[in-house]
């Protein structure tokens, strides 16, 4: 609790993140209006008590669309972080076992190769072959995340392998895989959580960008990026169509970045001591 109060970024970050994950979770059971129902009579209405964020060109409630869009964004980014961690972390752990060994070389060169493909280009390739969908966006962002986590894990694990307690574990007869799992992994977990938050926010931005250009979630799935794309031709008539989805992306990403900064300060004992 005192950590929450000490960090200037942790609390606002946590609040913003909770608001948007909360909105996404609530949308699973309830939204103010059904967004599959078109109500042409009340199209492009500015914000009011009935529709707090207004309505779009088909008369759909923008607040409801933002809530469902939060679900898409968060689901895509979260699964993409999961893919990056589940594949990247074991590779990083394996590479760190013997620095400069064959395994290390192969994994790190593979990493460099994937690193040369920005997630947008991976998405372009996947879409060119299989067509656009939320799943393809997840895969594209997930692949992009793999080398990020592999590098981070390797870097952190390398410095741990020379520690005395690892030597003690080896003397006790533990194998390399077991040491990686029981001693290395828990000690890099903090770093992974912080990086996970950052990749999560990058994933939200990437998903928005992909669905904006039509490479992400397809109708009827609501998505912030596509709401922005749809609003573009009407921006001079009804600026609120573009305002709210954009703000939603901005605040979610900002919240996650602040949360990541705050967590890094909170989880890094060196910084904590320095402050006290």
């Amino acid at each position, binding site marked *: 609790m005192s950590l929450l109060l000490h960090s200037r970024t942790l609390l606002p970050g946590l609040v913003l993140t909770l608001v948007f994950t909360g909105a996404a979770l609530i949308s699973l059971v309830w939204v103010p209006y059904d967004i599959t129902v078109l109500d042409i009579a009340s199209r492009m209405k500015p914000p009011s008590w009935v529709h707090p964020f207004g309505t779009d060109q088909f008369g759909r409630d923008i607040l409801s669309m933002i809530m469902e869009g939060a679900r898409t964004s968060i689901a895509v980014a979260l699964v993409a972080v999961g893919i990056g961690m589940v594949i990247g972390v074991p590779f990083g752990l394996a590479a760190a076992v013997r620095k400069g060994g064959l395994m290390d070389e192969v994994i790190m060169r593979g990493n460099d190769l994937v690193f040369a493909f920005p997630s947008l280009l991976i998405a372009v390739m996947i879409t*060119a072959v299989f067509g656009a969908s939320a799943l393809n966006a997840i895969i594209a962002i997930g692949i992009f995340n793999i080398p990020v986590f592999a590098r981070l894990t390797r870097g952190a694990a390398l410095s741990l392998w020379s520690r005395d307690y690892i030597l003690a574990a080896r003397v006790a007869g533990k194998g390399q895989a077991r040491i990686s799992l029981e001693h290395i992994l828990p000690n890099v977990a903090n770093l992974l959580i912080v990086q996970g938050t950052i990749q999560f926010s990058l994933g939200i931005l990437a998903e928005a960008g992909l669905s904006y250009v039509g490479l992400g979630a397809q109708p009827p799935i609501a998505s912030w990026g596509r709401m922005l794309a749809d609003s573009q031709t009407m921006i001079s008539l009804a600026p609120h169509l573009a305002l709210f989805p954009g703000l939603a992306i901005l605040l979610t990403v900002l919240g996650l970045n602040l949360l990541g900064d705050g967590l890094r300060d909170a989880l890094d004992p060196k910084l904590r001591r320095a402050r006290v």
Partner: protein
Amino acid sequence: MLHYFLKRLISLGLSLVAASVVIFLALEVVPGDPASYMLGLNAQEDTLNALRQELGLNGTILERYVSWAGGLLTGDFGTSYTYRTPVAGMIGDRLWVSLPLALYALILSTLIAFPAGIWAAARRGTAADATVMGVTQLGVAIPNFWFAMLMVLVFAINLRWFSAGGFPGWDAGFFVAMKALTLPAIALALPQASILTRVMRSSLLDTLNEDFIRTARAKGLTKGQALWRHAVRNALIPVLTILGLQFSFLLAGAIIIENVFFLPGLGRLVFQSISARDLIVVESIVMLLVFAVILVNFAVDMAYAWVDPRLRRRR
């Protein structure tokens, strides 16, 4: 240095080959035959064969890869399935929009980030520093295509200072063309400038803690003199690395921004090609961009080694 250079050169070559294999396999070994897609369901078998022959779709995968990769080396990117014109020409035309846009954005982000980062570092802990950090926090979080839309609303639709989109071409005059690229370049530069400002600031703060700065101050230099004569120059190394890496992100990021402003660049071309299933064009553009990323990384590595001799020995 020569040894390091040759080693990196070999690894550069291998990366390019590996990337081309990945791109080729991903896009060529796909279900569906471009020839039958182009000619429709009622196409005769001999017509199909003739078209496959023309597009170079006959032969084993290895043969096709060798002919494609060999073509890339000689500047022959193949023939577009839909437009029936050489892909190299199509890309060349579009590159004259995307490349200047990325360079423009790179210059803008440098012009913003260097002074802002130095200014914030020199006033560490003050309100000025906090403001710069707050603004960069927003700049990193804002989706640049949304920022682009807001700029169109304000500067094109309301104030009418710029056009809302389109590109008059370089024939219309340098300044007219640059004006059309200004809003897109600002949108593209904003997140990069924010990141660069933060890197500049933290790198400078690290440098300001070094002993040689204390020495410089001890021999009588003012804070400002020590900052400009010694700290900034030494803080530039990590900043230049990030700057180099950003260029490839700008080139890829231009794909989305071009769509906001309807600019006839590589981004528009790649999306048109996806919807037309013109895979050879998609393949060439992706290869070109990945090639740019790998090449820029190589250049950054070399520049780094040139500046900092310790790196040559480390690997």
